[in-house]
């Protein structure tokens, strides 16, 4: 009775807005940022939220091209804004000139200046500040402030990524905080991004944070000092609903207008189901991303040491059917870790096709013949059998795993499923490399990031490197290492692409990892929203949110 009475009383207050009255956009997110500081605790959801309010100097756009957001022109050798120079102690470095756009202001009206760049570099270079994402700034050994809008960054060596620069921090707000931080870690606890996130002067984007309830919602309102395209909404609310079934219900009820697709909203199967049931209620966009699903193979496993066995495993997997059946063909099959949308992709690298007969033949050639139970054995009587792990409780992954298990069995390969909670898998099994055969998960990278962390021999996690790398298979190839180093320092785009092609060929030949597919971001947006352009990579579409507006 109480419920019904309350409903009747409040029904009128909850009427849907009339067409043309969309001045507020409510976005559902299934995760919540732990910190709003651009350089602490990097998370996809933090990048997403901060895209509205604080801009990087440069970012990769929806076409995966590096562009200026705060600068006037991308530095290049051709335009003279990037130059090779001899470092004071010898060796070659670079001088990169950043010129800020005129009229840039922080949310409190203070101008954004080159001194803010120098301040961010100083803070990023100080280990005590606790930046977990310090690398973009630690590339520079010194910064010269030429004038209010111009800074020259001197790089420690020749770097292909010299034109990629992150968000800058407001010295007039964060300077005093950093100065007061006495002990290592003090800055993390004291930064205004965490202690006073609604401070307007922290942000230089089209929106400011007007309300912040930790773990619940972030409310954004237009920045009156923003000099670019004027934002299209009076208010944007990021609402945290971490149960995706409840998030879906909120979308249908109109409590949220859209769900972020950058891996922080609904899963792709939920979006596909929603599209089937409500095809006209929302706009559905599937954007292939840099996140690639793959199977790591343990290099030390003697059964996997023969490349013919690894190749046979990949030939036995029908990845296209898997993608078609489970994801309605929205996720492109991967030939290597490089997405076809990447500027470094090489189409000439041969892709392994589904060929179960070929897989069996290859295994026979490697000395494996099917036994009475259908599982292959070698001359020593060993069974071709592996443990196959993934994240327990991830329904889609477990479904994929079952399909792959069946595919492999048809090629006389036995896999024993051994799944673990994500925390155990990533925090223990992969980190300590205690898996014995195959592990399936996804990996995400930046657009032009080399595979150093995942395929570089220096990045094999071990006690000696504090378990810091992510080369979990244990792949070690001197040619790959040399190519990675060369790609990181190659400034000629043509030469760099050639090196990248070589790395992709090594990957395709050696197959230390079985590539499956690239995940697609599944975006659900209202039909009345214009100007929405998802990117599919680490620089989220919110970096261009001023272009979002109602029809």
């Amino acid at each position, binding site marked *: 009775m109480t419920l019904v009475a309350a409903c*009747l009383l*409040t029904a009128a207050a*909850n009427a849907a807005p009339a067409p043309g009255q969309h001045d507020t956009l409510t976005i559902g997110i299934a995760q919540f940022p732990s910190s709003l500081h651009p350089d602490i605790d*990097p998370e996809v959801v933090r990048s997403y939220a901060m895209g509205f309010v604080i801009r990087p100097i440069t970012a990769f756009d929806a076409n995966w091209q590096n562009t200026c957001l705060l600068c006037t022109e991308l530095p290049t050798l051709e335009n003279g804004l990037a130059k090779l120079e001899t470092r004071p102690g010898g060796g070659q470095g670079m001088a990169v000139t950043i010129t800020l756009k005129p009229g840039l202001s922080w949310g409190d009206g203070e101008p954004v200046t080159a001194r803010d760049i120098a301040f961010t570099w100083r803070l990023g270079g100080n280990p005590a500040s606790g930046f977990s994402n310090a690398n973009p700034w630690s590339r520079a050994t010194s910064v010269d402030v030429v004038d209010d809008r111009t800074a020259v960054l001197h790089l420690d060596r020749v770097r292909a990524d010299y034109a990629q620069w992150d968000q800058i921090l407001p010295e007039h707000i964060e300077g005093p905080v950093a100065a007061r931080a006495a002990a290592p870690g003090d800055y993390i606890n004291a930064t205004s991004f965490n202690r006073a996130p609604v401070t307007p002067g922290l942000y230089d984007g089209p929106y400011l944070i007007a*309300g912040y309830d930790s773990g619940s919602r972030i409310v954004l309102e237009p920045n009156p000092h923003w000099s670019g395209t004027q934002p299209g909404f009076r208010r944007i609310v990021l609402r945290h609903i971490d149960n995706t079934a409840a998030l879906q219900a909120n979308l249908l009820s109109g409590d949220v207008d859209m769900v972020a697709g950058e891996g922080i909203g609904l899963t792709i199967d939920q979006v596909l189901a929603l599209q089937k049931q409500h095809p006209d209620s929302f706009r559905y966009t599937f954007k292939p991303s840099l996140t690639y699903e793959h199977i790591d193979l343990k290099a030390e496993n003697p059964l996997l040491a023969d490349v013919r066995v690894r190749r046979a495993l990949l030939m036995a997997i029908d990845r296209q059917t898997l993608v078609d059946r489970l994801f309605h063909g929205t996720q492109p099959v991967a030939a290597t870790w490089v997405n076809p949308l990447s500027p470094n992709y090489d189409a000439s690298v041969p892709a392994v096709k589904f060929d179960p007969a070929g897989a069996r033949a290859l295994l026979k050639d490697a000395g494996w013949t099917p036994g009475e139970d259908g599982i292959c054995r070698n001359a020593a009587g060993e069974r071709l059998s592996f443990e196959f792990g993934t994240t327990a409780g991830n329904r889609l992954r477990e479904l994929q795993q079952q399909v792959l298990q069946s595919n492999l069995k048809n090629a006389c390969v036995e896999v024993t499923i051994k799944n673990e909670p994500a925390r155990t898998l990533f*925090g223990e099994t992969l980190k300590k490399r205690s898996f014995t055969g195959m592990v399936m998960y996804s990996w995400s*990278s930046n657009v032009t990031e080399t595979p150093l962390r995942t395929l570089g021999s220096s990045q094999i996690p071990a006690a000696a490197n504090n378990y810091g790398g992510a080369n979990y298979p244990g792949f070690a190839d001197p040619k790959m290492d040399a190519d990675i180093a060369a790609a990181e320092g190659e400034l000629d785009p043509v030469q760099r692409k050639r090196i990248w092609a070589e790395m992709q060929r090594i990957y395709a030949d050696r197959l230390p990892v079985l590539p499956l597919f690239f995940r697609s971001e599944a975006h659900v947006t209202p039909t009345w929203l214009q100007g929405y352009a998802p990117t599919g990579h680490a620089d989220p579409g919110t970096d261009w949110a001023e272009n979002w507006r109602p029809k």
Partner: protein
Amino acid sequence: MTRFILARCGQSALVLLVMSFVIYSLIGLMPGDPIDVMIASNPGATPEVVAHLRAIYGLDQPILLRYGHWLAAALRGDFGYSRTHAQPVLTVLLPALLQTCKLMLTSFVVSVVLAFALGVWASLKPGGVADSIISLFAFAGISVPVFWLALVLILVFAVTWHVLPASGIGTFGDGGVTDQLRHLILPVTTLALANIGSFTRFIRAAMIETMRMDHIRTARAKGAGERRVVLVHALRNAMIPVVTVIALSFGGLFSGALITETMFAQPGMGKMIYDAILGNDFNLALTGLLFATLVTLLGNLLADLAYGWLDPRIKL
């Protein structure tokens, strides 16, 4: 009485100390550490950065030493910083506690009041029509999974009828009592429906047992009306076992209702503690769990005191 209360306070302090060590150790035993979570998606994290971050967060020290530091600071009233919220623990905990109080106390009061009414009504004629219908309702409340009930309520009242908000704690910029109450209706209903069933069954059973006792027969023989017999003579005696159940539930109130909070996006204690444990947020998880333990101990103390009040024969 005073000696009893002081002794129980001393026992509670000891339990809290032991619990703090057990919880700290158990969280420490979980695989991975906060830095693993932090660097999982960070291509820029070199082994040197990882080592430095571990030192900054004190994770390079043995767990016993870390616990000692935490305990010393906690005794000074400093519960440290929450890593997953980047704020002092109490700054995070207090709003969550307030939200939990709103949600849980409202649902608790609604559950207890309705359960008393239904339980007493059902006990008047065991096996009668009212008893059968109330029992059916109670069993349904006990059996239906909370997440399913929550989803059904959202689908009916928010998605289909558009009369109540599906989730959240209020509309930004409104903040009025009516707006907050509207956002509480569905989660409170979910929790109340789940609790009413078990409370009703306990009250019904206790009342049926009491109504068979000699003093009830005596009261009737002395000409007391049925209303007086039930409400004055039976209900007070039936309260003793019910108080035990309610007191134990009281402790659970402040550790939140994880599923309901998750489904309705209510940032309360249950969700906060769960996320803190998963995020390896030692300080927040530990403080939240210790607070829940403290409230449970307090609930038990209150129950013991209530026994003495309800039945003067019980000496504390």
